[in-house]
């Protein structure tokens, strides 16, 4: 296995990238660095048999939630742990249905997205944005959309497009900082 220091995965931007995908096309070499989890999910060569034939509806949603749920599937709630910001443990949330702080949404992201989908049938805000945040929200929404396209590109082995998208995401994130 090849390691790339602490570089984050080009697809999910969460886990450490451990796999380098290289494609040579017309003499041009393109590279993507991705994590094992995304490799398993999106690289057709690594597709798990039970996933074959699954509808590819929203890969980004998949990345954020269902993958998480699959990993946590069947485990007891307390194994999801505690919120790193306020210390609330997940089992308490299950009992009270009350979160401890805004960061709980990140700490328990996978499980919460699942809950939100059950409650609302959706996991994406479509309403009011507080004034002053419009630009940031638009940028983040665009980045999320690009990541979704990136995942799709990788799945369909369109690495040229994937690299293009990766560069767009990077540019967007740099303009942010």
């Amino acid at each position, binding site marked *: 296995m090849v390691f790339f220091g602490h570089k984050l995965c080009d697809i999910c931007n969460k886990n450490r990238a451990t796999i380098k995908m290289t494609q040579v096309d017309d003499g041009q070499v393109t590279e993507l660095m991705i994590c094992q989890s995304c490799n398993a999910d999106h690289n057709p060569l690594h597709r798990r048999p039970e996933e074959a034939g699954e509808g590819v509806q929203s890969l980004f949603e998949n990345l954020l939630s269902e993958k998480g749920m699959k990993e946590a599937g069947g485990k007891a709630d307390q194994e999801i742990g505690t919120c790193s910001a306020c210390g609330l443990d997940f089992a308490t949330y299950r009992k009270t249905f009350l*979160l401890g702080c805004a960061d709980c949404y990140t700490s328990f992201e996978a499980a919460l997205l699942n809950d939100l989908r059950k409650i609302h049938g959706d996991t994406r*805000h479509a309403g009011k944005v507080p004034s002053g945040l419009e630009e940031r929200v638009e940028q983040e929404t665009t980045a999320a959309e690009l990541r979704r396209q990136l995942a799709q590109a990788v799945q369909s082995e369109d690495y040229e497009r994937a690299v293009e998208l990766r560069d767009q995401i990077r540019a967007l994130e740099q303009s942010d900082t």
Partner: protein
Amino acid sequence: MSESLHILCDRWLGNTGPQSDIVVSSRARLARNLAGARFARSSTPEDLKRVHDAVAAAISAEPIFSEFHEIVLADLSAAERSILREAHLISPELERHTKHCAVHLAPDASISVMVNEEDHIRMQAIVTGYRVREAHRVINEVDDTLTRHLQFAFSSRLGYLTACPTNTGTGLRASVMLHLPGLVMNGDVEKIIREIAEHGFAVRGLYGEGSNCTGDLYQISNEVTLGKSEEEIIESLLGVLDQLIVRERDARQSLFNEKPVFVEDAIWRSYGTLVQARMINSAEAIGLLSRLRLGIERGHFHDRLTHHDLNRLLIEIQPGHLMAMRKVAEETELRDAARADFLRERLIDIANSN
């Protein structure tokens, strides 16, 4: 304080709203939390105080709030807190928790900003009759104004972050309180409640559940707060309500046409009890008042009792209000006697010319 408190709290009832023969009131509330602070139920008293102070500072900084009153819950007696709840200005949740909890009320009580409820801020606009869009417009402006001073917990993906995921996203709960004696009497109410619930709306009896709901008063609200805009949420709620209002009108009309004696008997028996009883508890009173609604429709009380008067009576006969208005003690028997006196005085003359 009690006397002035119930007068203040009931001011929003002052004008007659559209379709008040069926829709008692319309409400819109928004849930907000301050960024960087723990949600209220996991906060220390110091955190709660900081939130309380930050909201109070934001409100006092804005001229449009200059006439608002701040009521600190810990300064009130239990009876006074119940007045606020009975007038629908605070939630039962806020009535129970008092530490560093407050409510900022508009001069006509149509806007209330609850502080340190389950979320740091629960702001609502309440108006008489069928005016959900107006209630939302009002509270949205309050939210815009507060946003100038307070940074709310917000994520671009999930919207406003709330303590309970049932409010995440818009944090909007739009609701109406409906009086449905026609659909209760013809027996359709259970079926209709199920249908509405299947469309993703919450229906609950205001005083009790389902067919045991006292007084035939139901509250209907949106359940979905995420994935739809505020406008979409309100329009889909109104779509359901428009149909329900038509069905209630039809139900009343069919009852009058098909079972006139049955309906007349129900109205006059209720009226008889209300003006003759010497003790009456609030559940019985609400049930009997409900039947008078049909009497108003039949023209029995002329303009001496309107739908609007009846909507107000439903709040005034609640324990906290009664104790404040009639200056009675907390003993249930005394209160039931005071309620009977109040209703008799209020209703004895309305049917004289019949």
